[in-house]
C-alpha cells in the first residue's frame, strides 16, 4: 500500500441552523481547505472524491452526493457516498485512504455534511433512532440518548462509575471549547450545574449530550509526492494506522465473552473480565478498531505513544467508555482516569482538545471529518492560526498540544455499531 498523507482541511462552524443550501455549505468547507494551501492546489488536480452524509430523512433529498459533486465542479471524476451512522465521516476518511493507498487516485477530497435543522429536535431524534432495529428496538421507545444511558447505567452498576465523573468529562470539553472559535457552545459549566441540568435520560443530563447541528467539513488526502509539493515545509500528516470495528445493531445481542487484548498486551491483564465483556458497558468495535490501528502504527504503549485524541463524545458516557476501549486505562477505570486528570490538556493523553462533539456539535456526516481537520491542525501546530478569534478573545494556542508526534481520531456510530480509528503522524 502507498503512504497516504493529509494536507489540508476545512470546516464550517457547526451551528443549530445554517440556512445556506447543503451544496454551498460544503463549498465553504472545501474553499477553506483549498485556501489553506495558498493556491498550490489546482482544482483540476483532485482526482477523486468521497462524500459522506448520514440521513436521507432530514431533507427528503436522495443522492445529495450528486448535487454536491456537481456544485464542487468535480464531475465527471470518480466519487462514492459513504454512510455508516455516526461513524459516517470516519468511514469516509477510510474510503479516501483506500482510494490513495490502492493507487486508484493521487489526490482525493473527502467531504461530509449534514443539515439537521429542517426538522424539530424530537423528530430528528426519531430519524436517528431509525438507525436502530425498527422491528424490535425502535418501537419500544427508540431514542439513542436512551440507549447510551442504559449503557452508562450498567457501567455505573458494574464498576462504580459516578454521574460526577460523567459531568467532569462534559466540563472538560466545554472548557477546551472556550479556546476554539469553531466550537458552537462557549459555555462555562461546573460539575454541579451539569448534574442539576435538565435530565434527558438517566444519568445523562442535557449538557452531557451533543447537539444536532448543521455543518460541513472537508479533508484533502494524497500521496507523499503530492504532500511534499503541496506542503513544501513538511507541515502535513501521514496516516500510519487505521482500524474499523463493528458490532451488533441490537445492543442486547452483544456477547458477554473475553476482552480483545491490544497489541503487546498480556491477555491475563483482563482475567477479571472473563465472560463479561463487552456486554452493554463497553464497545467491542472500538477495541477492535483501536487494536487494528495500533498494530499498523506500531503502538504498544498508548499512554506514551499518543499525544492527543479526538474522540466521538456524542455523550459524556461514551467518551468515558472509549478511554477504556483505547487502552488509556483498564476496563472499569475510565472514571478514575478522568478524576486523576488523564484526558485533560497537560494530562497523560489529552482527549478532545477541540471541545469534541459536546461543544462543537454533531452534524453527523461532517463530524468524523471535523475530527480529522482538528487533528491535522494539531499536527501542523496550527491551532492558534485556525482556532483563534481575537475579536472574541479566543486564543487557539491554548488548546495546541505541544509538538505532537502522533494523534488519533475516533469516529463512532450508534451504540458502537461502527467505529473508525485513524492515526495521524508527523512525516519523517
Amino acid at each position, binding site marked *: 500500500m502507498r503512504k497516504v498523507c493529509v494536507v489540508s482541511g476545512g470546516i464550517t462552524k457547526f451551528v443549530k441552523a445554517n440556512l445556506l443550501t447543503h451544496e454551498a455549505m460544503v463549498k465553504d468547507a472545501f474553499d477553506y481547505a483549498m485556501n489553506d494551501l495558498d493556491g498550490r492546489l489546482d482544482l483540476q488536480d483532485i482526482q477523486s472524491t468521497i462524500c459522506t452524509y448520514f440521513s436521507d430523512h432530514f431533507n*427528503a433529498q436522495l443522492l445529495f452526493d450528486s448535487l454536491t459533486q456537481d456544485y464542487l465542479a468535480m464531475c465527471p471524476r470518480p466519487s462514492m457516498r459513504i454512510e455508516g451512522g455516526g461513524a459516517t465521516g470516519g468511514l469516509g476518511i477510510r474510503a479516501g485512504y483506500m482510494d490513495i493507498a490502492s493507487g486508484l487516485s493521487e489526490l482525493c477530497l473527502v467531504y461530509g455534511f449534514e443539515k439537521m435543522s429542517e426538522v424539530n429536535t424530537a423528530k430528528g431524534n*426519531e430519524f436517528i433512532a431509525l438507525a436502530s432495529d425498527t422491528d424490535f428496538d425502535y418501537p419500544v421507545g427508540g431514542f439513542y*440518548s436512551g440507549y447510551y444511558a442504559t449503557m452508562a447505567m450498567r457501567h455505573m452498576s458494574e464498576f462504580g462509575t459516578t454521574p460526577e465523573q460523567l459531568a467532569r468529562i462534559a466540563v472538560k470539553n466545554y472548557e477546551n471549547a472556550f479556546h476554539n472559535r469553531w466550537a458552537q457552545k462557549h459555555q462555562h459549566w461546573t460539575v454541579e450545574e451539569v448534574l442539576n441540568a435538565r435530565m*434527558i*435520560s438517566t444519568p445523562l443530563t442535557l449538557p452531557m449530550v451533543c447537539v444536532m447541528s448543521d455543518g460541513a467539513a472537508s479533508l484533502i488526502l494524497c500521496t507523499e509526492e503530492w504532500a511534499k509539493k503541496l506542503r513544501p515545509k513538511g507541515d502535513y500528516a501521514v496516516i500510519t494506522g487505521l482500524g474499523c470495528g463493528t458490532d451488533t445493531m441490537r445492543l442486547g445481542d452483544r456477547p458477554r465473552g473475553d476482552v480483545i487484548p491490544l497489541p503487546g498486551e498480556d491477555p491475563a491483564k483482563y482475567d477479571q473480565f472473563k465472560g463479561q465483556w463487552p456486554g*452493554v458497558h463497553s464497545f467491542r468495535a472500538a477495541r477492535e478498531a483501536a487494536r487494528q490501528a495500533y498494530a499498523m502504527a506500531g503502538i504498544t504503549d498508548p499512554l506514551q505513544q499518543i499525544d492527543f485524541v479526538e474522540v466521538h463524545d456524542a455523550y459524556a458516557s461514551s467518551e468515558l467508555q472509549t478511554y477504556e476501549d483505547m487502552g488509556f486505562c483498564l476496563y472499569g477505570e475510565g472514571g478514575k482516569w478522568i478524576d486523576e486528570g488523564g484526558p485533560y490538556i497537560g494530562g497523560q493523553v489529552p482527549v478532545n482538545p477541540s471541545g469534541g462533539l459536546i461543544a462543537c456539535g454533531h452534524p453527523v456526516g461532517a463530524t468524523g471529518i471535523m475530527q480529522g481537520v482538528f487533528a491535522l491542525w494539531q499536527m501542523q501546530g496550527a491551532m492558534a492560526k485556525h482556532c483563534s478569534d481575537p475579536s472574541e478573545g479566543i486564543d487557539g494556542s491554548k488548546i495546541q498540544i505541544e509538538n505532537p508526534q502522533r494523534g488519533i481520531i475516533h469516529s463512532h456510530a450508534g451504540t458502537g455499531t461502527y467505529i473508525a480509528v485513524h492515526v495521524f503522524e508527523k512525516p519523517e
Partner: protein
Amino acid sequence: MTHVYNTDPLQVHRHYEIDYIHSYGEVSEFFIALKKKKLMATRCLSCGATWLPPRRDCGKCGAKTEWFEAPLQGKVHTFSVLHFAAEAFLPEVPFILAYIELPGIDTLFLTKIKNCGLEDVYVGMPVKAKFRRLVDWTPNDIWFEPA
C-alpha cells in the same frame, strides 16, 4: 397554500409521508406468539446459542435455529428513565426503558418497565412479563413489571 416561515433566506414548508407494508418475515412467529401471551426465542441447532429477539440463522455460527418458549420472569440488567424521546414517544415520557436478563437466554431483551415508580427500578430487580390483550403487532405487545 405553502406556508412561508421566513423570506431572507426564503424558508417554506415541505411535507412528506409514506405508509409501508412491512413483513416480519421469518420472525413473524415472535409477534403472533405475543398474542397468545408467549415469548418465543430461538436456539441454534449447532452451537446452542439462544436468541431473543429471535433469529432464523444463528448470529454466532450461521447454522439454523429452532423456536422455543422463553421464561417470563427475569431481572433488570440495566435501565434508564427517559425524560425526552423521539417525537413518536414524547407523549409517553417519562418512562423506563430496560434490558432484561432471562434465564437460559444469552441475549438481553429490550422492553419497557411499567407499574413501577421511576425511583424504584434498580439493576437486578426481579421482573415478570405482561402482555397486551389488544395487540398492535409490535414489541410493545409485551412489557415487564416488578415481580
